[in-house]
């Protein structure tokens, strides 16, 4: 894992002192509210519906047990005893007081964490594959790249007042778990025909009110050109991006308005101009960063305890079947801890739960944890022999829900419960859907199915790329939920299609049930996942189930 250099530590300390002074200068009137706003945003402090919210970066989703314990401490000391993990590998504290925030930032700095550029019109916290360094299918670990970008983008003098926010994601695996095609810039680590490492650069993807799948702007960028090339892209957009309308300011609109070829030409021009400013020292730093991410020493042990538990304990077996993924080292697994207990708020963890997970990581997991964009916690390196003990400890803490990738593993944005922009509730809808399918005992029968819910068209819940997407709108003061089907967040990225008119809050769960029933009756076999059935049969049977022949379900039952 990356350890702060003296430079990083001094930077964060100075930055925190500056923010402390900014809070005071806001109070004494030196700063107007308008001027204070972007300054607090670039330090992660957001104003929500009921209170301030502090969004803390978990760079590329990686943290150690001491860091997670400190998050637990912060949750108890300055918040209501819990934290909310987001779809962008951040943790949010929903109830801090303005005067406490500088102390919270200092507490974060003690464990080499910060809230810098988690908000505002800046380059945001860089995200990466949450299985980085562990996945069996990985070509290269994307985290050193993400860390290099973190350092370059932090306090970048040219890019603190951009037209709008700017998000970068990196993946080192052909199976894209970082949703790179839905970011302002997506980077896929590849090798060219000569075997040289580099990147495919995707630009202009994004969800929000105008969902767009990103386009390739450079099909092979040599590794050493990364920072100057990123700088060229952001620099071109900083001048060209629209500042007259915040809904048209993201780079996806700039690319749409000017065309990808025009953008590519401008970027190459700018790149040629600024490339000489980089002497190559960034590559030396990059090499040091890489050595920080050297893999842990994996043990060679007997997996018999796992095999026995798998055979004898059906609860353990079902958890192992859903929550484990292939690890590159023999005898090991990647274990996911679901923060989606049926009926709970997706992504929330209490301070006590954080401590349990931190202890497990310290004891069994080479002291590493990850946050996934699906709002779950990952123990990336565990030996299979330890899994029965891990499972038992999770069960005791209410963390052993066996539903990763299942219908109740829902991504939901904060919605009306917290967010000032919301037009509808989203957390309660997620809770109702999860509870309903748990009652029906259909979850495992249904298999891989991703539901994603947003509480307004800003799409923080990524509903466009959910197999089933739900968007909560306000129709003349009444919540109305629009459904999309067929979205995909993987390397086959696709935007879901609308089914038709929306559903009232009390109709949405039955509507989801009808969609699932249709899938179950249409699928060729249990091996055909929802997304594949949808690709094969199309929208019609689902439409009929939702809007036509209302008694069809009764007949089938």
């Amino acid at each position, binding site marked *: 894992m990356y350890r702060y250099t003296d430079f990083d530590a001094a930077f964060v300390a100075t930055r925190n002192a500056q923010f402390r002074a900014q809070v005071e200068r806001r109070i004494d009137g*030196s700063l107007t509210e308008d001027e204070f706003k972007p300054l607090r945003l670039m330090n992660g402090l957001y104003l929500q519906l009921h209170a301030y919210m502090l969004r803390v970066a978990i760079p590329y989703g990686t943290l150690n047990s001491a860091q997670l314990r400190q998050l637990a401490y912060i949750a108890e000391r300055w918040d209501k005893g819990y934290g909310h993990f987001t779809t962008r590998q951040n943790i949010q504290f929903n109830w801090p007081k303005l005067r406490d925030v500088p102390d919270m930032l200092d507490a974060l700095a003690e464990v080499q964490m910060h809230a810098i550029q988690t908000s505002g019109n800046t380059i945001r916290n860089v995200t990466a594959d949450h299985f980085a360094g562990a996945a069996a299918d990985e070509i290269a670990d994307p985290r050193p790249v993400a860390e290099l970008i973190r350092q370059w983008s932090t306090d970048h003098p040219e890019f603190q007042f951009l037209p709008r926010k700017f998000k970068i994601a990196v993946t080192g695996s052909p199976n894209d778990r970082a949703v790179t095609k839905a970011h302002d810039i997506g980077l896929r680590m590849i090798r060219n025909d000569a075997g040289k490492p580099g990147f495919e650069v995707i630009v202009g993807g994004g969800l929000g009110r105008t969902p767009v799948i990103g386009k390739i702007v450079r099909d092979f960028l040599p590794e050493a050109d990364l920072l100057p090339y990123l700088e060229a892209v952001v*620099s071109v957009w900083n*001048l060209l991006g629209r500042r007259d309308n915040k809904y048209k300011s993201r780079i996806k609109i700039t690319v749409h308005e000017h065309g990808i070829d025009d953008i590519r030409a401008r970027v190459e021009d700018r790149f040629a101009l600024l490339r000489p400013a*980089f002497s190559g*020292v960034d590559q030396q730093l990059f090499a040091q960063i890489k050595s920080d991410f050297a893999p842990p020493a994996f043990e060679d042990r007997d997996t018999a305890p796992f095999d026995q538990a798998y055979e004898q304990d059906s609860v353990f077996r079902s958890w192992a079947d859903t929550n484990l993924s292939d690890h590159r080292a023999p005898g090991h697994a990647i274990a996911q801890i679901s923060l989606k207990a049926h009926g709970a708020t997706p992504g929330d963890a209490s301070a006590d739960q954080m401590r349990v997970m931190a202890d497990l990581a310290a004891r069994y997991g080479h002291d590493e944890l990850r946050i996934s964009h699906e709002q779950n916690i990952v123990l990336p390196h565990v030996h299979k022999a330890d899994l029965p003990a891990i499972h038992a400890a999770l069960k005791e803490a209410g963390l052993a829900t066996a539903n990763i990738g299942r219908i109740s593993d829902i991504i939901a944005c904060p919605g009306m419960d917290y967010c000032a922009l919301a037009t509808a509730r989203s957390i309660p809808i997620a809770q109702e859907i999860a509870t309903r399918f748990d009652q029906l005992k259909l979850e495992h029968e249904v298999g891989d199915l991703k539901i994603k819910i947003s509480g307004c068209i800003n799409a923080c819940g990524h509903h466009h790329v959910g197999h089933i997407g739900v968007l909560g709108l306000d129709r003349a003061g009444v919540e109305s939920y629009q459904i999309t089907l067929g979205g995909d967040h993987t390397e086959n990225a696709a935007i879901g299609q609308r089914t038709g008119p929306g559903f009232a809050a009390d109709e949405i769960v039955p509507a989801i049930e009808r969609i699932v029933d249709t899938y179950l009756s249409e699928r060729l076999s249990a091996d055909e996942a929802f997304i594949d059935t949808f690709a094969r049969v199309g929208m019609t049977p689902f439409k009929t189930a939702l809007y036509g022949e209302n008694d069809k379900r009764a007949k089938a039952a």
Partner: protein
Amino acid sequence: MTVLINDTGFLTTDPTRWIDPEARIDLPPDTDPARLRCLLIGKELVRIAFPGFADGRGFTLARMIRQQGYKGWLRAHGHVIADQYAMIRRSGFDDVEIDDDLAARQPEEQWLSRADWQAHDYQSRLRGRAA
């Protein structure tokens, strides 16, 4: 009236007062970057306008002007706040010109507290040479 600010604080005389009017140019934030080279021929003082402090185009324009080899005076003019002073200097500006009201609200010591703009700078660390 306006106030000029650099690393030494609020200035009482304008260091560019000797520069001929023809050698001065004011650039708006929407200046076409492709025209910069022509616009700068024979210029010794370039002032870039910041109509609002949240409009960050001036930072990129300044950087580009320096990257194209301009060695003359570069001034940020308009709504720039003390918190942006380090960014201003790191982008290649020499000084800042703000109006009296803002100077009264954000007095000299708030600007001086950012005069150490060369410290804690990731960019100089990553580039190894001046941008």
